[in-house]
């Protein structure tokens, strides 16, 4: 790695890590979670970057060379539809197949009991042997090729596994390329979801889980407890072995209006809290990527150990979040995605200034949009967010 690139990388890493530990670095780190936006910037369609992981990696590297950012995700388009077509899973509408080539992929959640990928009477199977249930019941059920005979079914399994291995290898190569070519840090490693979100997103569907809260609450509690050790294991098995960059927990249905306090306290929070505490005890911080407005959950989030999380703000009030938990946790995000899409560059700069002045004066803040930045964001606005922060966000 060229000496100047190594120096740049180390400066950026130091900046990023210092902020994550709620300290005050030399400048505010910029860590935009650019997803389909990189396709727009690099001149690819959504289809190209969603279906061909190598094009996604290339688009991210083009972005990282041109924007003065400290950290990015190697590929923030979290579903590689090349793989999901190979293993024939049912969860996605694919750009270029089901959608226009310039639309982002869509997630298809189970809508009712008939469509649920885990039935109401299958909780005990999941609780008793989560891996066995997933491999024997759930995966065959969600793979379209399961119904096409042994040849297609067996190949779908084989292709999925091989594709995953190739993809993981690709992330390693991508991390090195970002470091060497543009001195950019790979922002996160390791994936985590709350057990309750797994039940809602992938198994029962949110509507069915909501009914389960009333019809079979003990089963839901037991299922979350059964999933907990596996969520933790998968998070650290795929995490940064040096424990420098955080694991990310992608938080979906725990916030208002999806869940009451009572449901959150009983079903969602206990196992999620324990997983985060355990991971922090093992040495990993967790990026608490709170999608939506999680302000009403702050009293629970405040229970977590100091510096155990980086609290990411999407639709919440970042100033209120800072007031309540800013002394404990680094914050990130807060720039509204619709501002990046519909606003002017002046609007973006003004909002960045407001956030920097309001929550970043003592450090412990990382600049980013509230949610992943997709193809609708204006290039000049993302540039304004980055460049203004570089100029104004100096300590």
């Amino acid at each position, binding site marked *: 790695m060229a000496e100047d690139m190594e120096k740049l990388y180390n400066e950026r890493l130091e900046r990023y890590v210092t902020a994550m530990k709620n300290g005050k670095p030399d400048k505010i780190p910029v860590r935009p979670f650019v997803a389909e936006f990189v396709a727009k910037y690099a001149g690819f369609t959504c289809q190209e970057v969603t279906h061909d992981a190598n094009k996604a990696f290339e688009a991210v590297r083009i972005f990282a060379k041109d924007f003065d950012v400290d950290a990015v995700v190697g590929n923030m388009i*979290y*579903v*590689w539809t090349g*793989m*999901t077509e190979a*293993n024939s*899973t049912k969860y996605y509408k694919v750009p270029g197949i089901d959608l226009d080539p310039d639309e982002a992929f869509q997630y298809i959640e189970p809508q009712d009991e008939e469509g649920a990928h885990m039935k109401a009477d299958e909780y005990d199977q999941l609780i008793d*042997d*989560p*891996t*066995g249930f*997933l*491999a024997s019941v*759930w*995966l065959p059920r969600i793979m379209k090729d399961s119904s096409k005979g042994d040849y297609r079914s067996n190949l779908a399994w084989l292709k*999925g*596994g091989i594709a*995953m*291995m190739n993809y993981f290898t690709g992330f390693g190569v991508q991390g090195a390329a970002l470091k060497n070519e543009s001195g950019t840090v790979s922002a996160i490693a390791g*994936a*985590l*979801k709350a057990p309750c979100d*797994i039940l809602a997103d*992938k198994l029962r569907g949110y509507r069915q889980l909501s009914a389960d809260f009333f019809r079979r609450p003990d089963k839901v509690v037991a299922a979350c407890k059964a999933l907990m*050790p*596996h*969520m*933790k*294991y*998968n998070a650290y*098995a*795929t995490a940064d072995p040096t424990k420098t960059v955080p694991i990310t927990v992608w938080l979906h249905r725990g916030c208002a209006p999806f869940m009451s306090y009572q449901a959150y306290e009983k079903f969602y929070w206990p196992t999620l809290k324990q997983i985060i505490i355990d991971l922090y005890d093992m040495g990993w911080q967790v990026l608490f990527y709170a999608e939506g407005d999680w302000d009403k959950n702050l009293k629970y989030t405040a229970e977590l150990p100091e510096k155990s999380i980086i609290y990411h703000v999407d639709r919440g009030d970042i100033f209120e979040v800072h007031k309540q938990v800013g002394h404990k946790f680094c914050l990130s995000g807060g720039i509204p995605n619709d501002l990046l899409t519909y606003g002017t560059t002046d609007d973006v700069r003004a909002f960045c200034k407001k956030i920097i002045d309001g929550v970043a004066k003592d450090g412990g803040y990382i600049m980013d949009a509230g949610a992943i930045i997709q193809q609708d964001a204006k290039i000049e606005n993302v540039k304004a967010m980055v460049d203004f922060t570089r100029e104004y966000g100096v300590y």
Partner: protein
Amino acid sequence: MPDEKIEKKPGVCIPWEEKIKEYEKITGDAELIKKVWEDIDGLAYIYIWFVLIAA
């Protein structure tokens, strides 16, 4: 008497304790066979849970 069920811990699809029962005898290094079995079994585990969590 039915075999006692061997619990599958995180990271495991087919526990080694279950697999070893299928061998009549081990003539060589059992630890080597165990390690390689567990390494590859762990990859299958990661795939199954990767599809659930992130794909």
